[in-house]
């Protein structure tokens, strides 16, 4: 068994009670959708939009012929400039953007007022999205339940989140980086006909292929980590990654932080600004001067706090103390601003529960 020194509470697998509760909850959601005519809780509406594309051909003045997929109502087809290709079936599909309940009711009211007219938009309740709102509400409550204490429902949510997010990042990395930056240069023909039809042919396919072999090799070495032996080889790609970072950081730390921030800290300690009654006259500006003084003292004293080769004693110690005070003000202000953000996050989750799910907001 696992380490006896770590008694893990409730490590028995999901409790059957929780599982049954979950099942009942989802059943209730579906029942709400199908059995009861009057929805008091979440119901999501969508706007069914149909799309159609037909393949068309255009022969230019130079006799070169091009084909493209166009909407049947496209100006190019209506004008006869482009002609539909014979024997190719049109492709049709539906998209389902979400609409609010208000919009749905408005369209229904319009239909009721003018019976017999064809509706301009097809709005309907969407069972799959309604189920989604229920699932989302359940998962929201499952995470909140952790505040009470660790429990099987939270564990289910936690395991789900780990699995879903790991899958999400992998799929995302595949389509956004691996396909255009690795597979495309390695197999341009295949990529063009199956994955990215609009991929433009490179002027240097051989070079692109050769260059793409480098990250492929590095990636292969990285995956060697999964093999039972020789996993150390993965430090090669690791060294590449750290090298890239270090190279970028050498420049950016100086260019973006060190230089401009040092420059910003250099301020006149005595500031004169145009007088309110006479813009041509310069007068001593107490607040601006104070601000510069505070700014300069702050920067210098905090820098002293960060000196490592000197012990914080005597004058250095006193200056470092002032530095700590400045740090504390900085932290206090960061704390205040952060609290604000955290509370917004909670309001947003409550808005979801109250408005989208319970319909009481």
């Amino acid at each position, binding site marked *: 068994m696992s380490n006896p020194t770590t008694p893990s509470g409730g490590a028995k697998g999901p409790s059957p009670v929780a599982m049954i509760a979950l099942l009942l909850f989802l059943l209730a959601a579906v029942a709400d959708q199908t059995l009861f005519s009057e929805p008091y809780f979440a119901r999501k509406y969508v706007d069914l939009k149909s799309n159609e594309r037909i393949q068309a051909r255009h022969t230019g003045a130079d006799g070169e012929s091009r084909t493209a997929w166009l909407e049947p109502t496209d100006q190019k087809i209506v004008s006869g400039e482009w002609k539909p290709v014979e024997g190719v079936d049109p492709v049709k599909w539906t998209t389902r953007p979400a609409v609010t309940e208000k919009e749905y009711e408005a369209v229904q009211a319009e239909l009721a007022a003018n019976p017999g007219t064809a509706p301009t938009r097809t709005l309907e309740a969407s069972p799959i999205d309604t189920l989604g709102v229920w699932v989302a509400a359940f998962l929201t409550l499952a995470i909140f339940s952790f505040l009470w204490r660790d429990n099987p429902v939270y564990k289910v949510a936690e395991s789900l989140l780990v699995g879903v997010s790991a899958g999400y990042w992998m799929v995302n990395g595949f389509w956004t980086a691996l396909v255009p930056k690795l597979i495309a240069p390695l197999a341009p023909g295949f990529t063009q006909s199956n994955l990215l039809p609009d991929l433009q042919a490179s002027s240097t396919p051989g070079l692109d292929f050769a260059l793409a072999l480098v990250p492929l090799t590095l990636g292969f070495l990285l995956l060697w980590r999964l093999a039972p032996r020789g996993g150390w080889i993965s430090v090669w790609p690791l060294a590449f990654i750290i090298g890239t970072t270090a190279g970028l950081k050498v420049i950016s730390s*100086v260019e973006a932080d060190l230089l401009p921030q040092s420059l910003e800290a250099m301020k006149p300690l005595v500031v004169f600004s145009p007088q309110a009654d006479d813009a041509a006259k310069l007068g001593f500006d107490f607040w601006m001067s104070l601000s510069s003084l505070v700014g300069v003292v*702050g920067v210098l004293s905090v820098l002293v706090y960060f000196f490592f080769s000197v012990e914080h004693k005597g004058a250095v110690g006193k200056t470092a103390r002032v530095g700590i005070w400045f740090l*504390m003000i900085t932290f206090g202000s960061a704390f205040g601003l952060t609290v604000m953000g955290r509370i917004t996050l909670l309001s947003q989750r409550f808005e979801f529960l109250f408005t989208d799910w319970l319909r009481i907001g």
Partner: protein
Amino acid sequence: MFKRGIPIAILSLTGTLLVAAHFSPMTQSWGEVVLNWFSVVAAITAILGAGNLLLVNLEKISSRRPGWAYSAITIAAFAAMLVFGFLKIGAVPNPQNPTVYFAGDYETRESAYGWMYEYVMSPLTATMFALLAFYVASAAFRAFRAKNIEANILLVTAFIILLARTYAAELLTGWVPKDSAFFFVRLDAMSTGVIEHVATAGMRAITIGIALGALATSLRFMLGIDKSYLPRS
């Protein structure tokens, strides 16, 4: 040599090349190539992560370790995302090339992947994040104690910001005219003053320090002085 020499060489070479690419337009395109490699390797790390995730959880399931059922949930969710995402289930066709199946957009709300994102992943992450409002409250009660001068300074600053960033500022000090000699009593003026002048000074010094720290760390790596990431030879 293979364990330590080559990695140090790779590291220094990549780093130096990127520094050079910033200053020399001639090597700029090399820098671009390196950055492209970087994003490919970064994407491949996801496969490594997934492989490890599978190994750990499958091992847990097969040995029936406590909590194995949760591992099964993780694997099932992971597999579902991969199937939905790689096969682009329910994806809307690409309007320019509707016949090329894999050119479709898999992330729209019509697809299975999009549904999982909208109703599973997004509420879970957002709620996890929202827990912070509660933790911030308990930390306020428990940890923000006026133990010494430093803690007092922090608390007073936090109070000013907390009050000034809501309508409370208007209620408490809104009656002080903005252009009077005592305008600095106004909470919003105090908060702006603290943020823009004092906190910024502190933050500026922290930023300068961190920049030097980051530079030193980068140089230590590029010069091969810091070898902590390397295996034993």
